[in-house]
């Protein structure tokens, strides 16, 4: 299954803004660069690259999480 995914990515077969693919790629880049990743940055980057409207839908939840200090804006 992973093999098929990788082939598709190499051939550039997935829609450029498909959120699932974008998430995986951003995850990959972030881990390569920083060694760890932060969920907040990840979701932000994923949404910006694929479909920013996702962020709108998450505002409510995001605010609640922020209030409970479950979101870290920086790496802990």
């Amino acid at each position, binding site marked *: 299954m*992973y093999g098929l*995914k*990788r082939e598709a*990515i190499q051939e550039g077969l997935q829609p450029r803004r498909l*959120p*699932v693919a*974008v*998430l*995986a*790629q951003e*995850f*990959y880049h972030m*881990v390569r660069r920083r*060694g*760890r*990743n*932060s*969920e*907040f940055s990840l*979701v932000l980057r*994923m949404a910006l690259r*694929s479909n920013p409207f*996702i962020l709108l*839908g*998450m505002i*409510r*939840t995001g605010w*609640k*999480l922020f209030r*409970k*200090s*479950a*979101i*870290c804006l920086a*790496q*802990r």
Partner: protein
Amino acid sequence: MSAYSYFPGCSLRGTGAAYEESLLALFHVLGLSLTELEDWNCCGATSYMSIDEGSAFLLSARNLALAHKAKCRDVVAPCSACYLVLRKTQDYAVRYPAIGAHVGKSLAAANLPALDGVRVRHPLEVLYNDVGADRIHQLVKRPWRGGPVACYYGCQIVRPYHEVDRDCNPTRMDELLNAAGVPTVEYALKTKCCGGSLTGTMHEIGVRLNYVLLKEAVRKRAQAIVTVCPLCQYNLDACQAEIRRGTGERYDLPILYFTQALGWVLGADPEALGFSRSISGQKSIRQWFSTATEEAKAYV
């Protein structure tokens, strides 16, 4: 006092903060020592593996080698995805010589020891095997004031490896909670997927999956769902508001980590268990855990 190496993973430092807090508190009460793995890196989870398989194994191998170097060979990985990827790396490095050679070479180049002898553990399995339901039963300090719960295992810790539990009708979490005096219900959907990252990328599908899980838990008269995975907990927790809006049905279940439930019953400090971090079910949480805080403090 047995020493475990602790691999938090990225999500326990993010939305899964309550899991880390309650895990540390619970292990402290049980007298098990957890030493955070120094300079750990992200395990890669499924995303990394799907982009670059070759180096995906190296990410996990580095973590396991660091544990070996620290002479702390049992690595406890609470997050289901971390557990699975680390466990898979440990398995594949032995089973597939090509991967084993690749990993061995890179570790040697980074001046890290080989992987032999390092075991990947999950806190649920550590409690079941190393502590045991009987001992947990003896250590109970507070009665459970809440209602019956549904134990939700999620998909990753029960397949394909069965050290944590079997994939068809797992019951170990139920056994531990029951030994601690927490009543559980029969929950047929205990290993059905919560959607994982789909709630972010394909939102409607993700929400629907969680709706099915919540609906069945309520149908079985569970008053809370107890999970082992930070992503499962987040999904079940965060989707409830939208489900309420979408269906008009009243869902407000606390979604707890099993470490929170056990931690409370075994007498850990309630403030340290991260109950306030849950989004849904706060009313029940306040009733079950906070009103008893004063009395509980007298016990502790």
